[in-house]
């Protein structure tokens, strides 16, 4: 149980970067961007292929980020310059990227032009590189001693992945927080809030939308690149339903922690992504549910995340009303 939860938290914090990307489009820009399902795999495919070809995993991950940025910009251009509905522009890109991703993975070997997956079993991933620095420090045995002392039976192999991802994700969170407070960031937020207003203050909303959707997909692809290295493979279908996962993380986080300020909301989104993974891990332990039911479970979690806060709010209002009535009597 502990190992399953530990894995869920590890994955959750990597997926949190993707959720931050989804937050940028869905909440900040008010742009329902479905490119995510494709650009997540684009990131994974690009990183996996480059690592197989011998590039440093950090370089590979950054190129993946760039690839996602370009994909997002194209979605933004389709919407703003081509006047295509945002949902449709995202779906078009998602479909188109599927073939692009197969081609990218095909570059990993000379025998095929396109490939549905790239394994990274014996490759130097960013996690393997970090482990080389981490393991000699002896922190693992130190923490494991404490955890074992608390009564845990099974212990995780390493705490290094978790440590590294907490740092990476927090740094990205701080960059996002800062960016949304810069002049350009403020203009992007205003574009999602009131387009007419921001145009009257000499901002080109088209360019801001393209930039915003590009940055969002850059984060999504970066998250995909890390997930590929974490799970040691890239697969053409790993992006299916990614947008719902991102949305679930955003909604769960916001429902629990609120949206008082940008800094608080981005933190909420990260924790939301982790909670989502934990809920998923628990659900998969229900005896009659199978790993292939994961997408259905995802759908149900999103539905619950959307409906439960409303129900709670209604219940609260009822209570308040009852209280007021009582006070009058």
């Amino acid at each position, binding site marked *: 149980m502990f190992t399953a939860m530990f894995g869920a938290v590890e994955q959750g914090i990597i997926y949190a970067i993707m959720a931050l990307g989804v937050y940028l489009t869905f909440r900040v820009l008010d742009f329902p961007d479905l490119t995510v399902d494709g650009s997540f795999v684009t990131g994974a495919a690009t990183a996996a292929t480059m690592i197989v070809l011998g590039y440093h995993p950090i370089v590979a991950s950054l190129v993946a980020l760039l690839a996602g940025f370009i994909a997002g910009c194209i979605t933004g251009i389709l919407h703003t310059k081509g006047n295509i509905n945002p949902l449709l522009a995202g779906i078009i890109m998602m479909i188109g990227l599927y073939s692009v991703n197969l081609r990218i993975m095909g570059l990993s070997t000379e025998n095929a032009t396109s490939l549905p997956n790239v394994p990274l079993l014996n490759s130097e991933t960013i996690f393997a590189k970090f482990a080389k620095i981490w393991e000699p420090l002896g922190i693992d045995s130190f923490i494991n001693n404490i955890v074992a002392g608390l009564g845990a039976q099974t212990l995780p192999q390493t705490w290094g992945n978790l440590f590294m991802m907490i740092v990476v994700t927090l740094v990205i969170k701080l960059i996002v927080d800062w960016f949304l407070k810069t002049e350009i960031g403020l203009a992007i937020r205003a574009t999602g809030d009131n387009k007419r*207003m921001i145009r009257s203050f000499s901002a080109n909303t088209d360019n801001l939308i393209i930039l915003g959707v590009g940055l969002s997909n850059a984060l999504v692809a970066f998250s995909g690149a890390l997930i590929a290295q974490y799970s040691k493979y890239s697969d053409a279908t790993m992006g299916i339903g990614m947008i719902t996962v991102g949305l679930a993380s955003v909604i769960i986080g916001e429902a629990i922690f609120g949206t008082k300020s940008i800094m608080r909301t981005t933190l909420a989104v990260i924790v939301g992504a982790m909670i989502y993974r934990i809920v998923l891990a628990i659900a998969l332990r229900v005896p009659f549910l199978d790993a292939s039911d994961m997408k259905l479970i995802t759908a149900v979690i999103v539905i619950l995340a959307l409906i439960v806060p409303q129900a709670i709010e209604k219940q609260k209002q009822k209570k308040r009303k009852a209280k007021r009535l009582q006070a009058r009597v």
Partner: protein
Amino acid sequence: MLKLEGITKIFNEGTPDEKVALNHINLHLKPGDFVTVIGSNGAGKSTMMNMISGVLTPDVGKVWIDGKDVTNLPEYKRSRYIGRVFQDPMAGTAPSMTIEENLAIAYARNSSRTLRLGVNRERRDFFRTALEKLHLNLENRLNAKVGLLSGGERQALSLLMATFTKPSILLLDEHTAALDPSRAELITNLTKQLVEENQLTTLMVTHNMQQAIDLGNRLIMMDKGQIILEVNEDQKPNLTIPDLMAEFERIRGEKMATDRTLLG
């Protein structure tokens, strides 16, 4: 400062719904001019404002601002020179952002936007001083979300945001029409104060004849896409509502149409 040259705009040309919204409009504002525009619904007032701000482009004619031909400049490029306040108090501000963030957006109008922080200590002081002029206590609520403000407060903030960067032209499109009388009066007084302080060249559309007479140094009356009456600086101080009504009847040979124009 602002020059409209033979502006004509026809909507739905060549269909049964064809409407001549503007018919060869010529208008020239000198620096510091404050021109009020009156006219009944459909007279072309809003279309003229949209021509100046770049929301619409004319079929024929040219728009000049500061001696530059801006006829083909898109809206977002022109808005460097033009401050605008809309009729809808919700239209001029971003509701989910704070007061200081809204002001920072307005402050960045003149220069290109960069990765500098929108609000720093120096700017916050500047915003606070600017807000103090409104006497609405907004200077102590810099971090309040604008969506929480009342319509009057939002319109006052919009007015400040439109004016405090000293744009070449200020366009006010019935900006007091959606407010209750006491709030409207507050905004009217603020308008007067801010325009005088910053010496802004202003064009104000209004339905309220008294407001059109009280404010500004010139007045124009529009009807059916044309400017039918121009009152200059020398005549304006002695102008009364009955004068305007009589003029309209003399020119058009009919009574002025709507109650709304009268009572505002």
